[in-house]
């Protein structure tokens, strides 16, 4: 039998515009204006997912961004798929496809449902206690946990959408366009402030806009109609910008806020093409008015999580705004007057109410009187003790509360229903306020936290400030605005307000039941499946701080960050531990308020790395020639160039051999380059490098090592003296920006008297390194007029020359130990000069090689790579590079630290070479090095930093750092691996051509 759940026409819903969509593969219809949740409810679907831990069936619970249960996956298996979307926020469009996500294999038959039956075995902290032991079992547990817990699936294909970032500067930002926000925005804008009003929903007016009853009036009009006029008016104000579908995700210091403007998610997929999907708004506001309203609290009783149980205010919103009845037999359960507002809305729309259960004893108000007049049975002083129905609520059990509210008395009454609305009062939405650094205070009368101390120029107004009724809002909001904006006359004054609420509330954090607590499932945090019992267990096990209880029970975590349940958790802790709520404090509400997509966060930088990457001028050639790339900082560097299905090892072996036997060519453009000029340039270099620079002749190059002030190696590279007062420094690829920053620091703050100017020229030049025994022949063919004799152009020297009209700087320097020339040309000629080298080099089998071969070749020579063979604990002495540390210079950066008691220790880790007994055994980089494996615990002497199979030496070679390694030459050490021990011998770190004959060969 099909229920008729669409009731009375609503302005918000366009019933002439029918929309079809799919949920869990089945086709349904809704109307324009519906959310996925309202459309599902209109189709009598409550069950949408399974809970995280116990896999209990869960339904739609709210009508907003606080939804903990109705979390769905959109467009599964498409590049646009998105997990963890709240059905209450999805606006439906033609072709929408949504599916339940926390269930396997289906929402109606869920394998994990067995967890519910096993729940006595799954107390709080269960995952910590069980799955962590024994450690070796974790992998097996993990498979099942991942499979059955799954919080949705990430897209696996590239994101087809466009995202933007935008800066907005305004005088006043108003967050939330409910009645308080509308009043605030109008007041600010009318007083000349450049104002921005944002709201997460697609419409303005919050919950007042659908308030249409005789009981809430402003200046003798229904509050909803009054607000609608106000909204129409503010839309005309020029200095007021209004953004709907825009949710503020984070509120940082200095009134810096991040908001996500959602531009296309409500459109049919076909209409999204070439449109920006999300815009991340980076808002700098002089003043911020937070008007984020309040969130209704659930009530905590046994089995309070069944599908069909909603917040009372959500039932009202579905009826008033969407014209949808959530059930045909509705029961409301409340501790305050709000449920009666819902009841009146339902009565107005002809929706049946079976009963209202009110835990207050003696209570009367105009609202209650009106409901009673309509023959709705009200059970005063009662509580629900249990609910029944697995996939949909069917029945509730109620009992009378004792006078003190601690127990239930009398006999049980059973009431049948298909929908239950619960109302535990209201919680001001203070999340953004606390994110900004604001401090809360606790208001005892109605048990709420409200803003107390503001850290920046901001105020909270309306319900989020604890003004929870229409009359207090209309009195207090204009008053606060007057002070905050420092204005003389307020546009809103002397309202005539009718608000029919009775403010009484009977707050019982955990409602009693006829069962013992251990046998109940009273959910506090629905999304994380944390129950009252779990919280009490945590307290019994000794957790006292709310932050600890949060982590142990997972209450307040997840995508909803405890929007619904946090107060109950605190309340139960407070009652159990007899600590005052105000003193307990709340847990930290972390940004984002609602989840953001990666696209929103990275903006234009969607793609593989969510970041920009840098390409050398020769990049295109590498791509064409099948290079594999390696990320070095933001750079894409050619890693190796596989030929004929070679793997990396084979390609690197071939490249390394070719470079030593004939010629290799490397794109070294990524090396940092700093142009240094000024009359004190030489003195400056003297102070920043460990070796001496004053005597370096013009046209010569020198290798330099740069330390931190603590004596540890920081960077290295070759610097060339181009002129009397002109040097070109090269740095490591990854260190370029930091080196420049450090040099500027010393220049500006310690040595301002030096006449030196630094300019980064990394991007201005392409650097091509040609090495190998035939490199000289290749260079001479490219530059026929250049005298390449060792006498005229020796190792570590520099020449200026030209190819045609292209100026070239050639440095004869070597990082491979081979004779080698580095050609630097203006970046835009880089590719053509590279191609020329390749062309000319053909006769010599010139072989392009990448970073991996470069690393192998230098390791054969024992040259270090800063950051690979060093970390921030290696001095030049540890690296056996004493030769580069000047004994004569009075001072340089880090010098004093080289003879601190700690840096002169003999047993520091020192760089050594390592040779395996078996020449074919290649060590793993990072592997630990020990001497004695019989001693327990085994002493770790160091680790392997670089390891390769050398095709030129035909054996495995490695560099490593070993405690006291300098004096261990010839000593035998052990590298213990998972299944074996590898025996090694400590050697000199230089494996090949110790005499440097090849440099001039």
């Amino acid at each position: 039998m099909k229920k008729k759940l669409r009731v009375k026409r609503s302005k918000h819903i366009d019933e002439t515009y029918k929309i079809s969509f799919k949920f869990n593969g089945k086709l349904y219809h809704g109307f324009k204006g519906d959310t996925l949740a309202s459309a599902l409810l209109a189709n009598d679907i409550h069950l949408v997912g399974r809970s995280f831990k116990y896999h209990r069936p869960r339904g739609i619970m709210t009508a907003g961004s606080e939804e903990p249960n109705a979390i769905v996956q959109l467009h599964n298996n498409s590049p646009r798929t998105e997990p963890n979307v709240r059905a209450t926020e999805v606006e439906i469009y033609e072709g929408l496809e949504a599916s339940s996500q926390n269930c396997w294999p289906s929402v109606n038959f869920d394998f994990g449902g067995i967890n519910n039956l096993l729940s006595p075995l799954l107390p709080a902290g269960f995952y910590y206690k069980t799955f962590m032991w024994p450690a070796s079992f974790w992998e097996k547990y993990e498979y099942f946990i991942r499979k059955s817990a799954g919080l949705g699936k990430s897209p696996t294909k590239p994101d087809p959408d466009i995202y933007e970032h935008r800066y907005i500067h305004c005088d006043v930002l108003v967050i939330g366009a409910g009645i308080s926000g509308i009043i605030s925005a109008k007041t600010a804008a009318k007083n000349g402030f450049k104002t921005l009003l944002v709201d997460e929903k697609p419409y303005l007016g919050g919950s007042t806009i659908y308030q249409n009853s005789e009981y809430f009036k402003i200046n003798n009009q229904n509050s909803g109609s009054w607000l609608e006029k106000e909204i129409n008016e503010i839309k005309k104000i020029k200095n007021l910008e209004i953004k709907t579908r825009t949710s503020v995700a984070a509120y940082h210091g200095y009134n810096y806020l991040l908001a996500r403007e959602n531009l296309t998610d409500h459109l049919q997929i076909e209409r999204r093409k070439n449109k920006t999907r999300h815009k991340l708004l980076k808002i700098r506001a002089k003043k911020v008015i937070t008007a984020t309203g309040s969130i209704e609290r659930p009530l905590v009783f046994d089995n309070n999580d069944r599908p069909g149980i909603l917040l009372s205010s959500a039932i009202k919103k579905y009826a008033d705004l969407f014209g949808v009845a959530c059930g045909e037999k509705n029961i409301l359960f409340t501790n305050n007057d709000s449920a009666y507002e819902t009841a009146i809305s339902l009565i107005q729309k002809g929706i049946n109410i079976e009963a209202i259960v009110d835990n207050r004893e003696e209570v009367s108000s105009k609202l209650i009187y009106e409901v009673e007049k309509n023959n709705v049975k009200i059970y005063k002083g009662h509580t629900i003790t249990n609910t029944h129905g697995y996939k949909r609520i069917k029945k509730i059990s109620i009992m009378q509360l004792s006078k003190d509210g601690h127990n239930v008395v009398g006999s049980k009454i059973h009431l049948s229903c298909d929908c239950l609305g619960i109302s535990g009062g209201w919680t001001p939405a203070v999340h953004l306020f606390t994110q900004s650094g604001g401090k809360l205070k606790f208001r005892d009368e109605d048990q709420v936290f409200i803003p107390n101390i503001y850290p920046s120029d901001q105020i909270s107004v309306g319900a989020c400030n604890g003004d929870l009724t229409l009359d207090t809002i209309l009195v207090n909001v204009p008053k606060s605005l007057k002070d905050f904006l420092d204005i003389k006359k307020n546009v809103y004054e002397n309202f005539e307000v009718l608000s029919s609420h009775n403010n009484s509330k009977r707050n019982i954090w955990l409602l009693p039941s006829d069962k013992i607590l251990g046998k109940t499932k009273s959910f506090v945090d629905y999304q994380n499946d944390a129950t009252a019992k779990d919280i009490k267990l945590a307290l019994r096990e000794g957790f006292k701080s709310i932050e600890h209880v949060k982590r142990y029970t997972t209450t307040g975590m997840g995508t909803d960050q405890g929007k619904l349940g946090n107060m109950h958790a605190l309340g139960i802790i407070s009652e159990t531990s007899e600590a005052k709520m105000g003193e307990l404090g709340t847990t930290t509400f972390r940004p984002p308020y609602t989840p953001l997509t990666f696209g929103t966060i990275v903006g234009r930088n969607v793609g593989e790395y969510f970041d920009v990457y840098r390409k050398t001028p020769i990049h295109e050639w590498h791509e064409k020639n099948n290079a594999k790339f390696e990320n070095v900082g933001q750079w894409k560097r050619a890693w190796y160039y596989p030929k004929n299905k070679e793997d990396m090892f084979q390609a690197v072996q071939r490249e390394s051999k070719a470079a030593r036997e004939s010629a290799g060519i490397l794109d070294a453009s990524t090396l940092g380059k700093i142009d240094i000029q000024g009359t004190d340039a030489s003195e400056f270099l003297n102070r920043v490098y460990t070796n001496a620079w004053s005597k370096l002749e013009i046209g010569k190059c020198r290798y330099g090592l740069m330390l931190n002030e603590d004596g540890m190696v920081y960077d290295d590279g070759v610097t060339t003296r181009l002129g009397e007062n002109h040097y070109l420094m090269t740095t490591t690829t990854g260190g370029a920006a930091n080196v420049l920053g450090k040099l500027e620091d010393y220049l500006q703050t310690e040595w301002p008297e030096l006449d030196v100017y630094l300019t980064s020229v990394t991007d201005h030049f392409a650097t091509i390194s040609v090495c190998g025994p035939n490199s000289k022949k290749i260079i001479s063919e490219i530059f026929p007029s250049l005298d390449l004799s060792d006498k005229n152009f020796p190792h570590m020297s520099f020449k200026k020359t030209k190819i045609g009209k292209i100026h070239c700087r050639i440095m004869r320097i070597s990082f491979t130990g081979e004779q080698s020339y580095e050609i630097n040309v203006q970046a835009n000629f880089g590719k053509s000069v590279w191609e020329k080298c390749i062309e000319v080099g053909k006769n010599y089998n010139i072989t392009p090689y990448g970073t991996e071969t470069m690393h192998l070749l230098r390791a054969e020579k024992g040259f270090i790579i800063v950051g690979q063979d060093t970390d921030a604990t290696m001095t030049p002495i540890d690296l056996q590079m004493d030769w580069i540390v000047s004994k004569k210079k009075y001072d340089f950066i880090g010098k004093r630290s080289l003879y601190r008691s700690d840096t002169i220790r003999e047993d520091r880790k020192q760089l050594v070479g390592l040779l395996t007994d078996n020449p074919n055994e290649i060590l793993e980089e990072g592997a630990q090095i020990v001497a004695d494996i019989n001693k327990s615990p085994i002493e770790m002497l160091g680790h392997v930093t670089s390891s390769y199979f050398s095709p030129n030496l035909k054996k495995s070679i490695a560099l490593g750092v070993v405690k006291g390694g300098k004096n261990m030459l010839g000593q035998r050490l052990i590298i213990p691996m998972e299944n074996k021990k590898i025996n090694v011998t400590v050697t000199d770190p230089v494996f090949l051509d110790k005499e440097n004959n090849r440099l001039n060969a």
Partner: protein
Amino acid sequence: MFLINCPFCGEREQSEFKAGGEAHIVRPKQPTELSDDEWAEYLFMRKNIKGVQLERWNHIHGCRKWFNIVRDTTNDEIKAVYKMGEKPPI
């Protein structure tokens, strides 16, 4: 995220700057004359004040100039900005 008033460029986003730690720590002119303890004092010891602190900042993605600020570390309020070599105005 702070707004920092670079003395050379004006008010800019914090993301354009790099923090450089405590201000007014002068590198000793004659490090070789110092004992290990004295050198360590310069090298490692920082006050890390809870409250008003003098700090070095670099406008690394702007004019690249170093300068000092006076910041209250409890609420991130920047009370003053001044150039290298100048005395703190507060």
